[in-house]
């Protein structure tokens, strides 16, 4: 009576996982197959595996993948660090403020969460041009800082509620200024929140395609995600090449996630889930 029950959970969990994973599995196996094997047996395991598709991407004469990797890494790394710092400060400030203006600012920020980037792209470039930042890396990063600020604030403001106010007050009484209190007491406590902001923004900025292409400009804005688009156009039915590019372009961000995953869940749910 008890025995089948013991097996029920792992078995159904495994089954659900397998079904869910099938599409990813398709990509993984077909990266290591040649074209004819993909057509004749798309689902089968690649035996023997071939590295031709991977090599094809890595050794492109136009270095599409490598240039894209450098650009994506640079833009993503700088952007997420700046957004994390600024939105942590703003999130903390708004969560600790009780005024009406803080509420208004919070709602204004929340609305920004749902604006599709394409909708404001053209006027955004007007603003950047007026600031003299169009076609520059700082311009792109500033655009990201503005666009993703709401998410950072949303997460940090939620998390701040779990940090006892007394802790900050105690530090302030010890004579530390607001700036030092924040950086030395509050920010280290918000590590889980920082981890979730870093991960999510990392994923979103890494996967963004329109902004680099337009704001950095068509000549300089080649990121790995732009590379995915281009390889879809160039190879179309050649799924081995397309999947190989997708695989390589996704690998860095996946590794980044795995490195931070322990921290980040706590950050999103805050202490609130403790009940």
């Amino acid at each position, binding site marked *: 009576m008890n025995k089948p029950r013991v097996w029920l959970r792992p078995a159904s969990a495994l089954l659900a996982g397998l079904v869910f994973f099938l599409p990813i599995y398709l990509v993984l196996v077909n990266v290591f197959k040649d074209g004819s094997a993909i057509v004749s047996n798309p689902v089968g395991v690649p035996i023997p595996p071939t590295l031709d598709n991977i090599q094809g991407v890595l050794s*492109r*004469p*136009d*270095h*599409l993948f*490598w*240039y*894209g990797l*450098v*650009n994506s890494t*640079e833009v993503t*790394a*700088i952007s997420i*660090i*700046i957004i994390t*710092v600024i939105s942590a400060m703003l999130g903390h400030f708004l969560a600790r403020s009780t005024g009406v203006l803080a509420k208004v600012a919070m709602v204004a920020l929340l609305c920004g969460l749902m604006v599709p980037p394409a909708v404001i*792209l*053209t006027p955004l*470039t007007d603003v950047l*041009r007026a600031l003299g930042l*169009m*076609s*520059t*890396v*700082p311009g792109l*990063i500033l655009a990201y800082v503005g666009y993703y600020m709401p998410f950072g604030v949303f997460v940090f403001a939620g998390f701040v509620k779990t940090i006892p106010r007394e802790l900050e007050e105690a530090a302030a009484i010890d004579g530390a200024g607001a700036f030092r209190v924040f*950086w*030395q007491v509050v*920010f*280290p406590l918000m590590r889980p929140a920082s981890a979730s902001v870093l991960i999510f923004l990392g994923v979103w900025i890494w996967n963004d*395609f329109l902004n680099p*292409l*337009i704001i*950095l*400009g*068509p*000549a*300089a*804005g*080649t990121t790995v995600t*732009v590379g995915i*688009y*281009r390889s*879809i*156009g*160039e*190879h*179309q*039915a*050649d799924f081995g090449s397309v999947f190989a590019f997708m695989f390589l372009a996704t690998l860095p961000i996946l590794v980044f996630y795995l490195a931070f995953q322990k921290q980040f869940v706590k950050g999103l749910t805050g202490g609130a889930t403790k009940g």
Partner: protein
Amino acid sequence: MTRNPRLLSTVALAGALLLAGCTAGSTDTSTSKGGKATLTFLTFETPNLDAKYWDAAIARASAKVPGVTVKKLVSPSADRTGYAKQLDSTGQFPDIMIGLNPAGFAEAGKLAEWSDEDLENYIDPRANTYDGKVYQLPYATQATFVYYNKNDFAKAGIDTPPRTYKELLDASAKLKAKGINPFVVGGGGKDSWADMFPLICTVATDVYKETPDWLAQRRAGKVKFTDPAFVAAAQKVADLAEKGYIDRAGLSRSYADTEQAFRDGKGAMYPMGSWFSASADAKKPSFETGVFAWPTDHGSPALPGVTGGGMTVSSKASDVDLAKKWAKAFMEDEKNLNAAVKADALIIAIKGYTPPDNMGPVYEETVAAYRRAQSADGVVNSFSQETGDGSLPPGLADKAAAGVQKLLSGGMTASEFGAYMDSQWTKATR
């Protein structure tokens, strides 16, 4: 507490990187010696026109024009016109573009005009004019044909390709009776344009044959999409779908999948642009491929074709004359033309050019069929693909493709399709 210095150093590092502000790949250029002017050139990549093809072609053109540095820009998808619009609206319009649809850009004065002198070498210099002016080098022709699987035709006992529309229907019936799907038509996902080919053919035979400037008349309000001629053209397509001659599975197939479906023998006839012949020759399917023009009711030819596709130059280019010179050098370089013919099966419209000797049989047959139609004065415009004054308003080609999906799936009758096109026209020209 110990995190603070580490954080500061990270921020400092970020700042340093930021100041450096450089991006990789931005030196993606081909320079001729002593480059003075830098020009941007917008290309697009397809399986046939890959990165290698463009780099070699750019290098050949740059070798002929001293003092030019050309920076290659690549459209993220084959829709280079849409991308050019985005670049234009954000103040980054490229200097030189290939295969752009000039509509809109031309009227708004964003393009440089080609003079008669520039167009001396072109066979049909006035193929696309905007208010009498030429903005795109008309260097090649592409036409829509029906490619067919000779094995399937033999199996169904069809000895000669159909010469009248009735024969086309008979052939379809025979194929269907043998369990062979008559037509492969695609148009799923982002490639909805690919569903247009049957309608392009029936509009050519039933509308443009009689009234070559039909769209110009539509613009002037003299005709409507609900007029009997256009509805009859749409009705033919709807009937083909209704009889099961057009496989509805195509509505989910991307363009690439559609070609693969024809190659895999999933249908006997493949109405497609002449560029397919390059692919059929380069990677021969397991059967012989034949070609014929979509027949009219009575057999006289009405072949939908477009001449154009060449270079456009921005009127705001840093050096318009140099840009034009380079664009012409690119366009008229024999090796570049050979490469384009090989890759895309273009029918070159430049005087004195002959294709390489080693072209494949499907291309040769395609060109022969085009020349036959041409000599019988049977080449007409290609609905939704035409450029120049008598072309669809911006955005309408996409709407037409969406409408055809519904027409093919039986969700719309031919006259409903006509009414739909009229209302979309009103919206687009508001």
